C-alpha cells in the first residue's frame, strides 16, 4: 500500500547559497494506493504528476508531509519499485536487450543469479519484447528505434524484475491508438498475473478508466487531489467495454471533474 500524507513540494533554484526562487509544485496531496490495485492519476500538464511518482519512488523527498509504502516511511529509493519514466532514457551504450536487463544487474535476488541463470532472464526479456511488439529488435541500439519503440523498451525495463510496485509515467504517450490498445491488454494481463501495485500517470481518460480501479484527478499547479473516480468493470476487461454507454458517460464525468478545476 502506498500512502501520501499531506505531501507538499517546492522546487528551489539555488545559486551557491542563495535561493533564487521557489516553485510550489504540490500542495497538500493525500493519496492512497491499495496493495495490488491499479491506480491512475490524471491532471493538467505541469500539475505535478511526475513529481508525485518521483516522491513515491524516493527519488526526491517531499518538502512537507510523508510517504509510506506498506507502512514504512520512504526515505530512499527501494528496489521493489519499477519505474517507466516519461522520457524513455535508455542507455545509449547498451543494446535494447542490455537496457532491459539493467535492473537485474542491480536488484537482488536477481543480481546474484544473473550470472548463473542468464539464459532464463534473457528468455524473459525477449518474451517481454515480443509482447510489446518489438520482436527482432533486441540487438539494436536505442537510437535505432522510433520514439514509440523506445517507450515500449522502457516499459519492458520497468517490468523485468517483477517489481511489487510499478510506477508508470505516461507509458503509452508516444504510441498510436492500436498499439496502445494492444498494450493495454498486455499490461492488464501481466498485472492480473502478478497483482503488483500500479500507479500510472496518463493523459488519456479512456486509458485511465479502462485500466484502473481508481482514478485520482489533480488540479492545476500547485497540484492537489480534487477528485476520485472508481472504475469497477470486471476483469479481464476488453476493448469493447470502452464503447459501452456507461464507460463513455464515465469518461464525460471525468472530463468534467478536470475541467471544473
Amino acid at each position, binding site marked *: 500500500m502506498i500512502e501520501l500524507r499531506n505531501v507538499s513540494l517546492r522546487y528551489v533554484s539555488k545559486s551557491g547559497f542563495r535561493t533564487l526562487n521557489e516553485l510550489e509544485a504540490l500542495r497538500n496531496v493525500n493519496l492512497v494506493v491499495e496493495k495490488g490495485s491499479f491506480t491512475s492519476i490524471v491532471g493538467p500538464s505541469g500539475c505535478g504528476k511526475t513529481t508525485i511518482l*518521483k516522491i513515491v*519512488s*524516493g*527519488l526526491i523527498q517531499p518538502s512537507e508531509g510523508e510517504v509510506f509504502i506498506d507502512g514504512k516511511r520512504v526515505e*530512499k*529509493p*527501494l*528496489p521493489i*519499485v519499477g*519505474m517507466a*519514466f516519461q*522520457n524513455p*532514457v535508455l*542507455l*545509449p*551504450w*547498451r543494446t535494447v536487450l542490455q537496457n532491459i536487463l*539493467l*535492473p537485474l*544487474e*542491480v*536488484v537482488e535476488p536477481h543480481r546474484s543469479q544473473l550470472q548463473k541463470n542468464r539464459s532464463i532472464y534473457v528468455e524473459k526479456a525477449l518474451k517481454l519484447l515480443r509482447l510489446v511488439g518489438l520482436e527482432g529488435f533486441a540487438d539494436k*541500439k536505442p*537510437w535505432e528505434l522510433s520514439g514509440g519503440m523506445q517507450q515500449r523498451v522502457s516499459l519492458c525495463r520497468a517490468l523485468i*524484475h517483477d517489481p511489487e510496485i510499478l510506477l508508470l509515467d505516461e507509458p503509452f504517450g508516444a504510441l498510436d491508438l492500436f498499439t496502445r490498445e494492444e498494450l493495454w491488454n498486455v499490461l492488464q494481463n501481466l498485472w492480473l498475473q502478478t497483482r503488483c501495485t500500479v500507479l500510472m500517470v496518463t493523459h488519456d481518460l479512456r486509458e485511465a478508466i479502462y485500466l484502473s480501479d481508481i482514478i485520482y484527478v489533480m488540479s492545476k499547479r500547485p497540484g492537489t487531489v480534487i477528485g476520485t473516480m472508481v472504475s469497477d468493470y470486471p476483469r479481464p476487461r476488453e476493448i469493447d467495454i470502452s464503447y459501452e454507454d456507461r464507460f463513455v458517460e464515465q469518461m464525460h464525468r471525468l472530463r468534467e471533474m478536470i475541467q471544473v478545476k
Partner: protein
Amino acid sequence: MSKQSLSSLFVSAVKDYALPTAVFAGFFLLWEAVTRIFAIPEFILPSPSRTVEVMLANFPIIIRHSYATLEATLIGFGLSIVFGLLLGLAVGYSAIIYRAVYPLLVAFNTIPKVAIVPILVIWFGIGKVPAVLTAFLISFFPIVVNVAVALATIEPEIRDVLRSLGASKTQIFVKIGVPRSMPYFFGSLKVASTLAFVGAVISESVASNEGTGYLMIAASSRFDVPLVFAGLLVISFIGISLFLVFAILEKRLVGWAYR
C-alpha cells in the same frame, strides 16, 4: 549516413590510411626543406634525412634504449590508469572529495616533475623505479580530471534510472559513470600516454643508465644532435603505435558515442 556506395567506401579508405600518411610525409618534407633552405646547422635542428641515417646506423642501440623507455612508460601509465580512474571516480562522485582533493592535485601538478625526480632517486635509487614513478606522477592528472568531469555531469535523468532501483553509489559508477565517461576517458588516455612517455624520458635523462632520456642526454652532451632526434623519432613512433591501440579499443568500446 544512410548511403553506402563504392565511391564512399573508397573515400573512407582514403581517409583512414592515405591521409595521415600524406600528412606525415608532408611534415617530413617541410622539415627537410626548412633545414635546407635556411641552412640550419645540424647542431640546432638536423634534417630528417640525416636523423634517419643516424637512426639506422645506431638502430640496435636506439631500440634497446627505447625498449627500456617503453617499459617504464607502460608500467607508469598502467598505474596512472588504475589510480587516475579511482581518484577520478572519487572526485567526480563526491563534491566533498572534489573540494578537498582538487586544489592539492592542482598544486602538485603545477610543480615540474623534474624537481621531484631527485627525491625519487634518493629513495628508490637510480634506474627503472624513478622512471616508472615519474611517468605515473606526470600522467595521472588528466585521467582524474576527465573521469571526474564525466561523472559529475551525468544527466540526472539517466542517474535516476538507476537510483530508482535502489542502486548503490558504486553501482551507479559502474553501470553509468564508467561507460558514459569512456569517450573522455579515452581522450584523457591520449593525453596521459604522451605525458607518461615524457615523464619516463625526463626521469631517464636525470637519473638512469638506460632509456631514451639517457641516450638523449648522452648524445647531447657529445653534441650528437642527430642522435638526439633519432631517439625522439623512435619515441614518437612508439607513441603513435600506442595511440593506435587506443584508437582501435576506442572504436570498439565507445563507438556508440560517435554515431
